[in-house]
């Protein structure tokens, strides 16, 4: 049935077919691409991060001091 390589090529050409996406999907995706601002990652304020780390260290040291008393 598939004696030669060109038989296989012919079969591949005749068997594969193009598929089309749903037109509604294409339309909705285009609108999303052009209107959505996209996902933005909010940057944590550096001062807030510094305050959190400082407070954690302070309370950590305070707890150790209390347990040692």
């Amino acid at each position, binding site marked *: 049935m598939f004696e030669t390589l060109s038989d296989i090529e012919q079969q591949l050409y005749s*068997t594969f077919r193009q598929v089309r996406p749903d037109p509604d*999907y294409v339309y909705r*995706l*285009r609108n999303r691409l052009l209107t959505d601002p996209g996902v933005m990652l909010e940057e944590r304020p550096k001062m807030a991060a510094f305050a959190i780390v400082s407070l954690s260290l302070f309370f950590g040291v305070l707890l150790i001091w209390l347990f040692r008393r």
Partner: protein
Amino acid sequence: MTTHETDDTLERAIQGDPDAFSDLYECYVDRIYNYIYYRTGNHFDAEDLTARVFHRALGHIQSYNNRGVPFSAWLYRIAHNLVANWYRDRGRRREIPLEDYISPPEGSEHLETVLVKNQENERLFSAIRKLPMDRQHLLVLKFVERLSNAEVAVIMRRSEGAIKSLYHRTLLSLRSELKKME
């Protein structure tokens, strides 16, 4: 869209013109969808990954360098990477509905002829599924997308000669697999 128009549209899209990006989207969405559909085997994931390709393209179009790599090849590479991640993350094997792959029979064809053809197609796709991923990738680009060896070479980041050789070896593997099935 002619090459000149594509270049002009691309230049405007890189500058941030949303209408230009919309034109590029219209021009390539079917091809990218088609490619992803044949790599994933279902419409649901094809829609999801196609959306990701264009979101990524929109987000990175300013870094697209027009020298050497055509825009379509750039999109196919994004699609290829996303499909590869999709396989890696989910550890999925290819689940391709044969009835979606196989062309519908001509109305005038005799039933027996149709059945024989479907059996042949089924054997062919069983053999294709046994091929390594890069060879399946090559077959989709050549037979679904109808791309030339030169275009496939740009997308797969290989020389045209390497693609010709890979294609020849792919056909030999297919023939050998089909003979085993007889």
